[in-house]
């Protein structure tokens, strides 16, 4: 108890001791990084680096804001754990959800489904297939025609 009180006391003093010059230096660094990210976006780097560089600069800028404007540099361990945990869970959410889409069979992704619908399974795989007639879709009544080797279950009514 006494120990933690002493800790918070130094924390309080440290937060207040930061000179105004520190804020101005951080501000200048933030402006420089903003100009840098703008200029680098005009260069058109190859595809993955374009995004990675922009994100790296954004992470650097937010580190400056969090550490010095929000005083996490001076705050105690519990505050750091709370912040880092929230960052970790946001990264987990974004990373795993994108990983789900990235590892799917691509035609199952949203926006690709139309490709599946234009190619219904034909009677055999050897005859070349063409875009189907409007009437021959499986969900149309006229799809029930003689000579099909796969019996079509009746549509639920």
């Amino acid at each position, binding site marked *: *108890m006494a120990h933690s009180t002493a800790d918070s006391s130094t924390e309080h003093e440290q937060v207040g001791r930061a000179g*105004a010059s520190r804020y*101005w230096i951080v501000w200048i660094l933030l402006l420089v990084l903003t100009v840098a990210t703008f200029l680098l976006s005009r260069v058109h780097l190859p595809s993955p680096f374009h995004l990675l560089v922009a994100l790296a600069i954004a992470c650097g800028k937010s580190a400056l804001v969090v550490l010095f404007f929000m005083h996490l540099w001076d705050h105690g361990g*519990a505050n750091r754990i709370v912040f880092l945990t929230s960052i970790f869970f946001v990264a987990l959410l974004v990373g795993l959800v994108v990983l789900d889409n990235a590892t799917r069979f691509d035609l199952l*992704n949203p926006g690709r489904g139309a490709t599946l619908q234009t190619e219904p399974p034909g009677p055999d795989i050897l005859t070349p297939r063409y875009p189907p007639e409007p009437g021959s879709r499986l969900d149309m009544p006229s799809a029930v025609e003689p000579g099909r080797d796969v019996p079509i279950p009746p549509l639920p009514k």
Partner: protein
Amino acid sequence: MQPEAYVAHHFPNLQQQEHAARLGMWLFLATELLLFGGLFTAYSVYRFLYPATFALGSEHLSVAAGTVNTIVLITSSLTVALAFFYAHHGRGKAAALSLLVTLGFALVFLGIKAWEWTHDFHEGLLPGRYFSSKELQAVGAPMFFTLYFLLTGLHGLHVVVGMCVLTYVMIQAWRGVYDTGYTTTVELGGMYWHLVDLIWIFLYPLLYLI
């Protein structure tokens, strides 16, 4: 009124109370990050699915407006940090003026944002099924503008809330409430504003600089 007079009865001393207030604020900011995290996830998924369309949609946004807004928000963060510095050194009037400058920057930010949105409305760059642009015809473009309006809209809402918080802090600072040395309110209100800045730092490259 001495700073010790602000201690609630369930805290042994002022340091403990400030420590608890700070930790509570970080917890609240963590929930804010998770709130925006949901939208950033949606953004990531649809940017992964339609990378070319997102690049096209980004070209219909004004990079100049986005860049100016970034600089405006960064500078407003500086004036909030300076306000805390002044309040901590017993200069309540200087802190209030610094916060007034911040509110001015916030109004400039919202003004530029309103101009951008008006432009988008006239171009038919609207979310979802209201999308009616003649120039931009690509699968996924309505989704880009859905995410654009949701992200900037939620962020703009936070700007408005932050302005309300800072207005309260500014009035209290002008009346000399923080001159006694109890500046936790200024610090925590400022942290909210810095979070708004933090979110925009990510929105700027993700929306305007694809």
